[in-house]
């Protein structure tokens, strides 16, 4: 877990390929918050976590982590897959959240939308699905092509697949539970997200009481990579409100 910055506690949950990464986006958040960016079990070189069978296992894992480090309340920020985990946490423990920020989360079934199947894509298709500007994909490049790295990446994909292969990228129970969330919620969405379109953003906003939606015009699925400054600024502004 990377911990940096000063101020109120903020927990950042990464998406696929984001394990162990500390980007300018994080740096900016750390100017006003003590940011903790843990690595999901089975990701970033951590041992395989075969005990994880369902997305809620990850949600409880992080609620336990808050207890362990003695944080009664946090600002919770999750991107993509991490946003899904954050939403699951919020449905059972929103009283512990000073605020909830979801960046292009997956995790709910949206009528008329089927998430493109990333597991079946080669790299060019992945980049085209996830990014508005392909050059931004460099931030997710693996460090090398050694056997150790390839095994690590395979383990990471397996950890994702364990909880998201079928139903693909959603928990059928999550959507109808989003109404339980009482924390102030900000949805950040890349306008050109081709994995979870703006139709998904509208569904999230309709389900979470009072949720605000910010659209990032120059981004795909990962505005915190494509427009890190404006995304971080929007989050800071939202989380610093009382």
């Amino acid at each position, binding site marked *: 877990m990377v911990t940096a910055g000063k101020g109120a506690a903020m927990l950042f949950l990464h998406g696929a390929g984001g394990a162990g990464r500390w980007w300018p986006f994080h740096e900016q958040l750390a100017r006003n918050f003590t940011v903790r960016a843990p690595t999901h079990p089975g990701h970033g070189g951590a041992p395989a976590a075969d005990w994880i069978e369902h997305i809620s296992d990850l949600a409880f894992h992080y609620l336990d982590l808050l207890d362990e480090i003695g944080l009664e309340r946090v600002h919770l920020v999750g991107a993509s897959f991490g946003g899904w985990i954050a939403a699951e946490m919020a449905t059972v423990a929103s009283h512990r959240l000073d605020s909830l920020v979801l960046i292009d989360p997956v995790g709910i079934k949206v009528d008329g939308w089927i998430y493109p199947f990333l597991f079946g894509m*080669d790299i060019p298709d992945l980049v085209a699905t996830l990014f508005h500007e392909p050059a931004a994909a460099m931030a997710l490049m693996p460090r090398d092509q050694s056997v150790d790295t390839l*095994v690590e990446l*395979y383990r990471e994909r397996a950890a994702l*697949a364990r909880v998201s*292969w079928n139903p*693909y990228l959603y928990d059928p129970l999550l959507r109808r539970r989003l109404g339980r969330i009482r924390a102030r919620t900000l949805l950040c969405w890349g306008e050109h997200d081709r994995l979870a379109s703006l139709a998904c953003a509208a569904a999230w906003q309709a389900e979470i009481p009072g949720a605000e939606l910010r659209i990032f015009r120059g981004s795909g699925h990962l505005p915190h990579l494509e427009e890190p400054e404006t995304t971080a600024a929007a989050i800071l502004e939202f989380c610093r409100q009382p």
Partner: protein
Amino acid sequence: MKFYYFHLMPYPMEHDEASSWVTLSNRHYDPVVGHTLYNQYLDQLEYAEQLGWDGLCVNEHHQNCYGTMPSPNVMAAMLVRRTHRAKIAILGNGLPLRENPLRIAEEIAMLDVASGGRVISGFVRGIAPEYFSTAVNPTHSRERFYEAAELILRAWTEEGPFAFDGRFYRYPYVNPWPRPLQKPHPPVWCPSQGSSETVEWAARRRFPYLMVFTPITRIAQIYREYREACERHGYTASPYQLTVNLPIVVAENDAKAYEIAQAHALWVYHVGLRVAAPFWRPPGYLSESSLRRVLDNPTKLPTELTFEDLEAGGYIICGSPATVRDKLKVFSEELRAGIVCSGMNGGTHERTLEMMQLFAEEVMPHFRDDAHVDETAGVGR
């Protein structure tokens, strides 16, 4: 030596797409052509019995032009009523791919009863792309395989009804009618790709083990591990627990055989087994140790193989009857395998039938010392 005729029932075609599996559009499939092909393929299998083959093999694959038998049990059912002597080997049913594997216990029992006990039941996990075609979670593959196998074996051997409560499969009443005719159950074979876990599992249960479309040196190594595992479990593997499993091309002379092989044998590798990279490696399908073994010993992709690779690597056997006899002898001795499991492709249906006849007349009789042995006695159960 026992001879089993192996059929994939391909849909032979050329295309430029990246994958012959999962995403190759089924608009390429012409059912009128398919009608002719299915009937020719079934004719070939029936003819194989007439020519003296001991077994007829069908197998399960989904959403591709490589093998158009999504339900091998359907093909086996057709063969049951049109043949009378040969074993019918289903190599196999993809156990983890089923949501209700009790259905496999039922279907195999039906076939076994109807055929008078001629069925061999292969248990397979299904190859990697099948997890994309069926949406079954590949990280559950191994566990579902073992659990479904246990369920099916118990359903065949224990008096019902009993309750089964697994992680993936749960039934308050397991009580299939009919029960299989063979006792204690139809022989089980394990076609596999060489993972050490499956080798161990098959050896412990005396289930014959076979590998397909793999270079002979690799097969020899895995078969060695299998025999060692059998010894560890207190018995010596019968030769009928291992097969020489490769395509055979035979013609009146070597030159003619090479000509046919060059024209038709490469299709399986260059088109049939053209699989887009992500479909080869669904997450969690391989254990990490198996993945490391693959990454540490990179081999050519099927699409990269040349005809010379196929010949030198022992992916196929081709030549005159005398050449094929010699190579078959070398292969069976090297692998210490008692069963030859192979299909033939002469380019057309008629030429395939001619090739089968040539093989049955000029090759098979030289390997018939064991004509009166039942290869399934004490094996596979």
